[in-house]
């Protein structure tokens, strides 16, 4: 087993600033490849190699396996940088690459087998589809079958983690909740179905995977509830708090970097395209039009506003994590709400610009249009559905039960706004 002190990769551990700067250095080449990336519908080997060379795949890989084991939050900085050029690459680098954090919470033996063989591991996941999948308990493990959808980055994954419900042949009247487990799969255990033909985030290769009757040993599985808890099996192996925080609140931040970066990228590219633009019919300078100026301004203010929100709840998550405190009460709901608010605000800020571009913004490979398609695809993620994310806050404000015991059991003295 490798140790933290002598592992050569651990010795070259960059700071979060340095890692974000490495992401920034990749922007020109990513910009050149955007069309190719969209047409390929997946990352090119060249882009994956560039990301790996920069170490962007292991910010949350545990230090004992050669990763950087960084504090919570750096995935947002990296996503924000990369999405200035390419939303798909940013998605892979954050939403997919931060899955090493999840593996770091698995039982130790699973980690040894996965990271031990390949410290550079990229891990894809499949959660959508778990409800229809099935895992039958057998001697020493489970027999797993199912179809999982939208497994971003699976073409380049060294391992995949999927969730499935356990078929325990129970009495249908048994009121106890069905067990869900997470399974660590080797690529030899699933087939990739090449069916990602999207309008936005075209290049993420978020394809389906099919598993047929595969044996998964017990140590490569974990109860979903245990994995998400503040005391997952893998936590004891690592120093950082990130492997022992209650997972959900932290997991919800996964998509924010790409959203913010795509919004900034759209504004930046819009300004570049518009500052010298002349109306094709009447020849007027577009940049002199008052509505164009106010739109630019409002979109910029919106992105700034949601970045301030982001900085605020990321600080809270980090501080609670370091102190070993669970996030409870209104802070949970505020974060959930603000994350979804961020998503819809980013979409709105890009749409306001994209819709002034006329046909020129619809044709060819216009980058503002690409950012717009990307940001809409990002924001359509189920965790960002506005009503779902916002109504628990509304219920709380009115004094109703929210259904989250870490909120309902921690009443706040008064409505704080």
């Amino acid at each position, binding site marked *: 087993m490798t140790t933290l002190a002598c592992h050569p990769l651990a010795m070259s551990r960059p*700071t*979060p*600033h340095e890692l*974000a700067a490495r992401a*920034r250095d990749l922007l020109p080449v990513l910009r050149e490849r955007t069309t190719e990336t969209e047409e390929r519908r997946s990352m090119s080997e060249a882009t994956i190699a560039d990301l790996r060379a920069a170490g962007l795949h292991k910010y949350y890989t545990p230090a004992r396996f050669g990763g950087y084991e960084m*504090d919570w*939050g*750096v995935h*947002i*900085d990296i996503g*924000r940088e990369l999405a*200035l050029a390419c939303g798909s690459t940013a998605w892979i680098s954050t939403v997919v690459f931060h899955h090493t954090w999840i593996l770091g919470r698995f039982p130790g033996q699973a980690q040894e087998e996965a990271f031990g063989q390949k410290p550079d591991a990229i891990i894809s996941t499949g959660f959508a589809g778990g409800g229809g999948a099935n895992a039958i308990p057998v001697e020493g493990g489970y027999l797993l079958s199912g179809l999982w959808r939208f497994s971003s980055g699976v073409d380049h994954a060294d391992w995949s983690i999927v969730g499935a419900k356990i078929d325990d042949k129970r009495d249908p009247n048994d009121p106890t909740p069905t067990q869900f487990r997470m399974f660590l799969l080797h690529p030899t255990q699933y087939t990739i179905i090449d069916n990602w033909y999207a309008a936005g985030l075209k290049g993420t290769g978020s394809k389906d995977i099919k598993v047929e009757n595969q044996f998964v040993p017990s140590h490569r599985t974990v109860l979903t509830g245990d994995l998400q808890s503040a005391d997952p099996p893998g936590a004891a192996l690592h120093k950082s708090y990130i492997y022992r925080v209650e997972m959900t609140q932290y997991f919800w931040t996964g998509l924010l970097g790409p959203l913010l970066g795509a919004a*900034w990228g759209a504004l*930046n590219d819009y*300004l570049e395209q*518009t*500052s010298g633009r002349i109306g094709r019919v009447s020849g007027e300078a577009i*940049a*002199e039009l*008052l509505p*164009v*100026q*106010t*739109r*630019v*301004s*409002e979109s*910029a*203010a919106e992105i*700034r*506003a*949601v*970045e*301030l*929100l*982001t*900085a*605020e709840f*990321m*600080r*809270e998550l*980090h*501080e609670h994590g370091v102190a070993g405190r669970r996030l409870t009460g209104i802070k949970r709901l*505020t974060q959930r*709400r*603000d994350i979804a*608010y961020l998503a819809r605000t980013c979409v709105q800020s890009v749409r306001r610009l994209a819709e002034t571009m006329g046909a020129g913004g619809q044709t060819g490979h216009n980058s503002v249009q690409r950012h717009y398609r990307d940001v809409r695809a990002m924001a359509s993620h189920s965790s960002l559905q*506005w*009503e779902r994310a*916002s*109504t628990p*806050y*509304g*219920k709380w*404000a*009115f*004094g*109703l039960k929210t259904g989250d015991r870490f909120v309902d059991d921690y009443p706040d003295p008064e*409505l704080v*706004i």
Partner: protein
Amino acid sequence: MESNPGRTSSERDTLRQTLRGRARALIPALRTRAVDTEQRRHLPPETVADLKAAGLHKIFTPRRYGGFEADWGAHVDVAEELARGCGSTGWVSSVVCSHTWILGRFPKETQDDAFGANPDCIVSTGAQGGSRAVAVPGGFRVSGLWRFCSGSAHADFAIVGAIFDAEGSIPSRTAPRLMCVLDRRQFEIIDNWHAAGLKGTGSHDVKVTDQFVPKHRTALASDISGANPPGASVHPSYIYGVEMTLYFMTLLLGPILGAAKGGFTDYVEATKPRRGQTYGEAVVEQMHVQAAVAQSAAEIRSADLMGQAMIRALHDLGSRGRAIEGAQRAEMRRDLTYIAKVCREAVDRLSAMMGASGQTGHNPVHRHFRDICAMTAHGGVAWDKAMALYGSWALGRPSGDASIDRAGQRFSVPVGFPSDGCGLTGTRG
């Protein structure tokens, strides 16, 4: 360099907290008096007495005259709290504190004259209106009519801007402007503030008829509003030495945020027991109501964080003696205007969900909505004007504000997260 050697930074923070706490303690009384305040069209005497007893009129009165000389932002904290209860009170508080700040920028002689005679003074100002000042031996003869002078009903002094007319000829718009400090007996209040919102601010017209103002009670407006005005060297705090415009505009921040928060809180309280008038369903169970409350809350929170970041930046730059120029200046104008819009929309959304009951009687949510509409109608946050300033700058055109344009900056995406916010690579690197 620390520019306020009189107090440590933690003492100054404690002062801000103390002042905010005193304002918060007044909220229940202000809420009770809100209808009376609207009907009177100015603050009731007991409210003025409460504000004075809490010392809230002396936030920016210089220490050498018995004031608090607090750091920039104390007026925002206080007005925000007051406006949760009553927008008119929050407005008057923010405005009159900004006026004693302006008086603190006048020559020492003027300050000795005014603050010396009345350290507790409340100062109104008149900036909009027709006026002239004719030079005579020892001073000026001033006449004019100024509009919308908030707090004039309670004022001991008024500062009015007049076109300086050395020759006695017709004043032109480009002629230098003079600021004159007038005693209460020198101006007449024309009781004509009949507004839809901020009804209780007593923002009446002020009329001055051929009054003699001695020279030492006057200063050139450009000297007072520029950096390092005559009074700056008299006081230890940086606040009297900063260039005025952007700092002055933050007087809008506290009342706007407070009215939004007050509107939100009052809406939630009013809605908790509410049932549909026709079918008797519980309104709080409705998903669109829950989602709308969340949307307004998120908007108010983001506006609040933006306002705090702006105040922090103004304090940091001001206390370091640094001017606000270039992109940052354009961004502050933009953000202040954005805050105003977002807060107005947040209350509008809630007020609009209250049906007819939100329109009738003395519904507090509707009052907050009317107040925030009046507040955000202020020229300092006029949407097209402020937003176009940033927009034209970002599009590579002259913004029209020399302090923005002469810096010669171009738009670029900020590197990393806002370090004025923050928690990511901005501060943790």
